[in-house]
């Protein structure tokens, strides 16, 4: 579907807007943004360089606004399918509180502002990676992959995996293996996370015509793939310790979380086709959020603790 068709079909009659600031804030997908802020912060703090607290805070803010802007662009483009899905029908554009053109302008303006601010406050490599992330999410994922292939969230997961790389680049002006491992953790975590959701929301995705894995390959295949990706992400989560970037404390937490993730994925794998409540898939979706937050929190605590110990500040 082209951009021109999308806007001309969706544009309602011209009128005075009743949108509040809260509606525009909702366009930024605050819950997704909070995860982006957290993972970007970990990337920034984990970098082995001294940080200026003001520039670091402004960099995180710019990354958050950039992530929010890509969310607004996503809501502009996806208003037609958001309207038919129960999970997204109350979003500002499908609900009619914000016009599609307003969401598009808001998203484009904030994208530009976020990239320029990050370039000025940190460096232009970080700004370029942020710009690429916004492009990847809004254009590659939203406009191209999402409606075309069941591998949509596998490839599109890269957009959600970039924030720690942007954070690291903002601190150091470079990319490194450490930040790429953080990228890999989120990248490999995304398919089991979203497919667990897609299993119990398959009806929604089916109505919207989105080719999610359960709708295309079936539930049995999706369950097997969830388990396979979980087997991949669990050892990658422990990798920062194995490579000596963090201590055994992190390694233990990551191993325990990975074992938990595999346990829940095993539950999903063994789920009976007759199970319409899909409790194991719902539990796995909930645990996937705990897993990602736990891994990054452990990384952050480990890095900060190592610095405090090295500086002797506790003595």
């Amino acid at each position, binding site marked *: 579907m082209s951009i021109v068709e999308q806007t001309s079909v969706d544009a309602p009659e011209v009128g005075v*807007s*009743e949108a509040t*600031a809260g509606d*525009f804030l909702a366009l930024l997908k605050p819950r997704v943004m909070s995860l982006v802020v957290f993972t970007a912060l970990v990337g920034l703090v984990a970098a082995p360089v001294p940080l*200026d607290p*003001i520039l670091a805070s402004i960099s995180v803010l710019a990354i958050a606004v950039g992530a929010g802007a890509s969310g607004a662009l996503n809501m502009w483009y996806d208003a037609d399918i958001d309207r038919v899905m129960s999970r997204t029908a109350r979003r500002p554009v499908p609900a009619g509180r914000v016009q599609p053109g307003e969401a598009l302008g808001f998203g484009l303006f904030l994208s530009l502002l976020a990239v320029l*601010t990050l370039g*000025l406050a940190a460096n232009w490599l970080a700004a370029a990676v942020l710009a690429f992330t916004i492009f990847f999410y809004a254009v590659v994922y939203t406009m191209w992959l999402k409606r075309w292939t069941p591998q949509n969230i596998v490839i599109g997961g890269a957009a959600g995996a970039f924030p720690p790389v942007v954070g690291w680049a903002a601190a150091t002006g470079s990319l490194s293996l450490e930040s790429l491992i953080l990228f890999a953790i989120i990248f490999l975590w995304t398919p089991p996370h979203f497919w667990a959701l897609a299993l119990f929301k398959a009806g929604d995705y089916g109505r919207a015509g989105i080719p999610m894995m359960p709708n295309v390959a079936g539930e049995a295949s999706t369950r097997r793939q969830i388990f396979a990706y979980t087997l991949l992400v669990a050892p990658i989560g422990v990798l920062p310790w194995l490579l000596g970037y963090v201590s055994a404390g992190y390694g233990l937490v990551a191993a325990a979380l990975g074992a938990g993730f595999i346990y829940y994925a095993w539950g999903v794998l063994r789920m009976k086709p007759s199970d319409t409540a899909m409790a194991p898939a719902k539990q796995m979706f909930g645990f996937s959020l705990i897993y990602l937050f736990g891994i990054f929190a452990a990384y952050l605590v480990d890095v900060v603790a190592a610095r405090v110990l090295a500086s002797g500040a506790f003595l």
Partner: protein
Amino acid sequence: MATPERDKPVETVELTEKQRKARRNRSVAIAIALAALVVIFYLVTLAKGPGMMNRPL
């Protein structure tokens, strides 16, 4: 005699109470965002130091 075009009352949009409140809400949010931007760029300039101003003309 017909009223000249320039003397006719200008047609304006009468806002409903909800629209008026929403517009005020947006205006306040924009004002706060602009003030925050000023502070942010002021802080960036301070944090980057005088070196930021030393560039070839």
